[in-house]
């Protein structure tokens, strides 16, 4: 576990914290992009190059842009008068802290039995393509149908209502 891991982890966690804590939603979206970048770098550190670059393309290239579009279309950059946190925020914070405590406790408890450093797996994009066309062809087709349905659904949901249709 090198120095690079700590820097990338700090980037990821800092980005995530800023994304949920900042007041201005546009700043939140930028911090979210930073967190996505940190996670992509963690994937690259774990020798999952394909997943890391897919993360950059899909999350930074598409999801972050979608979030910015949604913020600007809903005038989310204007600060609300009532504050940005809901009335029940202490309960939400307590639930999140409890979840982290349980997860952290479980990880630290099994830490001595987790596997040590092992040989770097060599995965080529060719291998991934062969697997996608072989063992994983059914999930691939289902994802294709899901993405088509989601695309059509998102367009229909967000389409302008006709004036007389109400």
């Amino acid at each position, binding site marked *: 576990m090198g120095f690079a891991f700590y820097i990338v*982890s700090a980037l990821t966690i800092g980005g995530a914290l800023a994304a949920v804590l900042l007041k201005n939603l546009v700043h939140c979206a930028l911090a979210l992009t930073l967190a996505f970048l940190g996670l992509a770098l963690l994937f690259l550190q774990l020798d999952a190059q394909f997943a890391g670059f897919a993360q950059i393309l899909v999350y930074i290239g598409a999801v972050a842009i979608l979030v910015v579009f949604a913020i600007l279309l809903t005038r989310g950059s204007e600060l609300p008068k009532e504050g940005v946190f809901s009335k029940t925020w202490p309960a*939400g914070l307590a639930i999140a802290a409890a979840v982290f405590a349980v997860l952290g406790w479980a990880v630290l408890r099994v830490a001595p039995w987790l596997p040590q450093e092992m040989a770097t797996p060599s995965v080529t994009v060719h291998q991934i393509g062969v697997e996608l066309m072989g063992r994983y062809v059914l999930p691939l087709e289902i994802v294709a149908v899901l993405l088509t349905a989601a695309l059509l659904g998102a367009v229909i949901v967000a389409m302008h209502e006709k004036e007389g249709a109400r």
Partner: protein
Amino acid sequence: MGMASPLVGYLLVAALVFAIGLAGALTRRNAILVLIGIELMLNAANLNLIAFWRYGPHPETLTGMMFAIFSIAVAAAEAAVGLGLVISIYRHAKTTDLEQMNRMKG
């Protein structure tokens, strides 16, 4: 406890990002921020999948990484539909504040 497994660091980072996302989804008023929190939780799960793939017994079978790749694709679809819904609700109710969205009927 001697030399800790490198997996511990990744699992703790994933747990922390998941908790931050959960806190964001549960405490913010704006619907878009709730979606941002959900995206962070999905990403933390992906980090777990890839970390277990890397340090698991058979990384050459690619199972964990394939799971993460499919999860990324499904999360992209979820984000598109979720943000479409937020825009649609905004057009109807002129707000994205979840505490003002308390009617099922338009």
